[in-house]
């Protein structure tokens, strides 16, 4: 089981910055175009918590309309850090469903598929990146099927 370590806001911002391209679209953030104070303000606005797991960075933001659901994100294609985060959310936040909003070519998408998330839809032209519009994929997972 991968260990995940909770980061405070300052550490989370510097980890996001260090992740570079793989963190673009992480919980809707973009460390390439946003500066540190904006990243910190956005993280606090959605009450996000970030965790480091070795090289990878995972995080979640609660759904304010449904306390048993969380938005999750990962910078790595490796499913193990994500599995550790889902285990934590299920056990300690009592989440039953998870939503991931991932740019179409992001690394993190593979981790969600490997963890048993299902594609719930596509948001067309949701992001502007590298001088072009980019679609965003929506994945949903359930606590009873995604942890193992």
């Amino acid at each position, binding site marked *: 089981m991968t260990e995940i370590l909770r980061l405070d806001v300052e550490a989370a911002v510097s980890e996001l910055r260090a992740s570079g391209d793989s963190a673009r679209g992480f919980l809707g953030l*973009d460390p390439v*175009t946003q500066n540190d104070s904006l990243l910190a303000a956005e993280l606090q606005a959605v009450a996000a918590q970030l965790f480091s797991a070795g090289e990878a960075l995972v995080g979640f933001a609660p*759904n304010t*309309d*449904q*306390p*048993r*659901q969380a938005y999750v994100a990962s910078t790595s294609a490796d499913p193990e850090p994500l599995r550790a985060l889902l285990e934590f959310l299920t056990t300690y936040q009592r989440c*039953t*469903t998870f*939503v991931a909003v991932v740019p179409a070519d992001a690394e993190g998408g593979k981790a969600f598929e490997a963890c048993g998330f299902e594609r*719930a*839809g*596509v*948001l*067309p*032209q*949701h*992001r*502007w990146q590298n001088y072009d*519009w980019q679609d965003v994929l*929506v994945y*949903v997972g*359930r606590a009873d099927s995604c942890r193992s």
Partner: protein
Amino acid sequence: MRLRGYRRGDAHLLAGPWLPGELLGLPMIDWPMLAEPTTVPAPTDPSQELCIASGLGFVRYTELDWVHRRARVEIGLHALHSLDVLLKTVVAHGFLTLNLSRLYGWVTPVLDPPTGLLGDVGFQREATLPESAWLDGRPVDREIWGVVRND
């Protein structure tokens, strides 16, 4: 129909019996007596655009993102007439006045909203999120509907 800016005298239009965050918030008939009405805060910063449709309710462009040129739309209505004209005005205001490229919002199918009217102004269902809102003591599914400007 025109959307105008918010004034202090419009405060009574910002609260009502709608599900929070709904793209097309129509008054719910069986709103529980003891439940607080859903309230949208008066604008305090430029991260959102709050407009008033006179005599009908509010239209709020929130999560405004000027890099990706998109906004999430919330509408809360007290009266139900001229919905089609209002929706046309909402899309035109977003695309032409705010110069956005994409509008989206949450639709809760269990409330049986008039999705045909949303389709008429270009909105399409893009994703279905299970158990994404809380209603009547249980989680209900929500959908994301969006419209993209073609130019």
